[in-house]
Each structure stands twice: as structure tokens, then as C-alpha cells.
């Protein structure tokens, strides 16, 4: 793997993906906001061309009208880091599964499906992982009504 420069990488990716990719930076991460249709393309590029072989974290945030799926990628051993985000509408909460690119996405995607109710297209075994199978609702959504004390 050749040494990569994050700046160069972002520039190149922006050229290749055009307006589907919007790059922002916060204190800690370079954030690649990608259109959900181009997600697998970008991820494959990141893994194969830039050595991001470690999908550390796969999470999701409920922003009301939209969900955001967040991927934190690291490269071992080069130790670069990048954050990929994609927004999907609440009504048709579906995004491509990354299980073919990183098998570690398997349970992480199942967890997001379980708790946030986002469907992953192409996942071979998309069933609940933490909650019982007969559970109704997705508790991490902000409109989930909590019971109890």
C-alpha cells in the first residue's frame, strides 16, 4: 500500500464522484458525506485503493425526517481514519449492505436494523440481534414511546 495523503485522497474522490460527495471537516475526522446510491462504490474505493481495511464502527442517528448512517473507517497498520456518512429519508429507510466489503458489517447492520429500523439491501440474514424476535418497534428512534419508571 503506497503512502496516502488524506487531502489528495479527498480531492481525487471528489473528482471521481462529483456532486455525490460533499466533504466536511470537524475537529477529529474528515467526513465524507455521500449520496446513498454511491455508497458501495465509495466504500470499495476506500478499501481497495486507500487501505481502509478496518470498519471500526457502524452507527446511525435519527434526525427526524432523515436518518444518518455513520461509518468510521480506520486502516491497519497505516492508521489513517475517515468518517463516511450517508443520509436516507425516514419513509424509505434503506441503504446498501456492506457485508461483502467488510464481513464485520454483518452484526453491526443487524443491530442498526434492530434498534433503528434501517433496512440493509443485500444483507443475507437481516433479523433482530439484540431484541427478541417478536418485539414491536425500533427503540432508538426518537418517536419510540418508552414505558417503565
Amino acid at each position, binding site marked *: 500500500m503506497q503512502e496516502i495523503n488524506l487531502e489528495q485522497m479527498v480531492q481525487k474522490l471528489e473528482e471521481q464522484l462529483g456532486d455525490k460527495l460533499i466533504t466536511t471537516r*470537524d*475537529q*477529529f*475526522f474528515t467526513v465524507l458525506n455521500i449520496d446513498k446510491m454511491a455508497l458501495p462504490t465509495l466504500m470499495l474505493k476506500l478499501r481497495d485503493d486507500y487501505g481502509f*481495511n*478496518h*470498519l*471500526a*464502527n457502524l*452507527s*446511525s*442517528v*435519527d434526525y427526524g425526517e432523515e436518518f444518518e448512517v*455513520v461509518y*468510521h473507517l480506520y486502516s*491497519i*497498520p497505516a*492508521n489513517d*481514519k475517515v*468518517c463516511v456518512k450517508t443520509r436516507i429519508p425516514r419513509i424509505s429507510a434503506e441503504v446498501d449492505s456492506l457485508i461483502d466489503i*467488510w*464481513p*464485520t458489517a*454483518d*452484526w*453491526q447492520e443487524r*443491530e442498526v436494523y434492530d*434498534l433503528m429500523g434501517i433496512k440493509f439491501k443485500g444483507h443475507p440474514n437481516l433479523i*433482530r*440481534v*439484540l*431484541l*427478541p424476535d417478536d418485539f414491536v418497534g425500533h*427503540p*432508538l428512534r426518537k418517536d*419510540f414511546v*418508552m414505558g417503565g419508571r
Partner: protein
Amino acid sequence: MMQSDIYNVNVGPIHPSTHGGLHAEAVMDGEIIQDVIVHLGYVHRSVEKIAESKTYQQFVPYTARLDYLATNLPVLGYCQAVEKLLGIEVPERAEYIRIIMAELSRIASHQIAISATGIDLGATTGLMYGMRDRERIMNIFEMTGGQRLLSSYIRIGGVGADIPDEFIPAVQSFVNDIPKMMDEYNGLMTGNEIWEARMKGVGILSKEDAVKYGVTGPNLRASGIAYDIRKAEPYGIYDRFDFDIPARSGGDSLDRWNIRIEELGESGRIIQQALDNLPEGEVKAKIPKVLKAEAGTEVYHRIESAKGELGYYIVSDGGNKPYRLHVRAPSFINLMVLPLVCRGGVFQDLITNIATLDPILGESDR
């Protein structure tokens, strides 16, 4: 050609060797495992949802309940994540105390892993020796934080209180005894021929699979990748310490076991250095009573917990509570390779593999 039936055996959720509420459904052909289906969620407490209704400080004790065998590590990770988010500076003395407590927790967790592997493989006496040595760490935790197991001692901005006078001698004597403990575990178990026969070549996890499946921590290092977040992306003051990352290349159960024993010694080295350089001063930063992060800021902070990469992803909406908190639990992800490493082995290997993968269900189920 022999005709045989495939049958399923439910290992757990109530089974002596599943380290909590793990339910592994083994698909077996005689004594040979064809596949393992892992069912999780028996210890699910929806910690991530609870976090959304608690203030940043209030959530601290909950994090201790994630990895209840190494309580200071998840607390440290959370507190550092919040400090990163809010830009809080932690006093020097507190940093050193945190390192000591974190490494003690790592040792305690590894000792549980070691002794639990002992009892899972039938060496009951190994369990007692590991527990006996861990007891000394529990006493140190009781001395500093007041609680033995779930000591919520590390706080946002520092630690709960300064260390008592008897702390340093107790830690020092424990650190001095670590080589002796390692010798004992090695003598009783590692060197034992039966032990070696049960572990060598069992549950092989290749380098490539380990990375693909996102396995981290001792399990990754046993597969031949010397990757440790303490070195790769030092958090706190880990860059000031001199220590090695033990790594093996086989990726089998024996390697995973040996890595944990070697890490006891490395943690001992870190604690020794921290004790030698412990500065005087404050132990808690001056922070406001109500902590608020700027709206829209977010952080992903990861630490090397005893089980692997423990990450906290916190999103803030400007309030005093996290808008969204996600825990990247190493046990959850490490457990994913259980079917992979078990396939083709005999039933007893399943027990060995669960023990050496060392999952903690409180963390994996959250």
C-alpha cells in the same frame, strides 16, 4: 459410508461455560460442529437509549456496567470521549491515576479470562488462583473508589477523589508480584501437555479473517497483527510510557491465551512507570455543574479495552444530554467470528473458543 443426522445443541443461555447470557446454538454432526448460530440479547439493557435521557455526568455509572470485569476501562473511554467533545483538560495527576486504574482493570479482566478458561477446560484450581490474585485488585478498587466491582471512580474531568495513602504500597506490592503470578499460571496450565493439546490448533483465526471481521484486542494480536490503540492512536498519556505489544502468529486458542498472560506483564510495566512518575496536584478539573456541548458536534473516541477496541460515538444537539450515543463494543464484534473458528472442530473446542475469545456479555448486549 456412514449416515448421520445433524442435530442442534443449545449451549446456553443457561450453561456453565458461556460467561453470562450467551446462547450459542451448535449444529452438530456427532461430536463435530458444523455451524454455530449465536443468539444475543439476554443481557440487553438498552444502554444507548438510556444515555439519551441522562446528563453527561449521570451516564458515567452506567458505562461501568458495560464491561463489568474491567470497570474502569469503559468508564475511562466514556469520560475521555466527553472530555474530547467538550474540550476539558484533565490534570496531570488524574491522568496518571487513570492509567494506573485502567491497567489494573485490564489485569483484572485478563485474570478473569485466564481463570475462566481454566475452569472451562476443567482445571478448577486454575480458577481459584486467578481469582485469588484478582482479589488484590478488587481491594485496591475498594480503597480508592469505595466499590469493589463497579467502582465509578473515574469521572468526567478527572477522578472521583485523590488516592488514599495506602494505595501506592498496595499497587507496588501487586506489581512486584505479577511475574510470580504469571509463572504460576504458566506452570499450572500453559506448560501442561493436556492443556497444550486442547488449545494448540484449536479455533484458528487467520490474519485476513481477523481484519475482515473487525476483531480487535488480544484476539487480533494473537492472529499476528501487533495493533494496539494505545500505540497506534495514543489516548490520555499513553504516549509517555514504554511498553511492548505482545503478538503471536498462529491465531489459535493457545496464542490467544498466551497473549493475555503476556499482557499482564506489560500492564505491570506501565503501572510501574506511572507509579514512578506520579506528580502532585489536583485530581479533578474545574468543570461547570451542567455540561453542554455545542449543537451538531460529535465525536468518535476509541480506547484499547481489555477485550479490544471500545469506541464511543457521541452526537450532541447542544443540550446537557447526548443526542445519540453509540457504543462500539469489542465483545459484540469479536463474537462474530465464533462460528468461523468453531466450524469443523469437536464440541469441546466450542467451549475452548468461547473462553479464549473472552466475550463479556454485558458489553456485547449492552
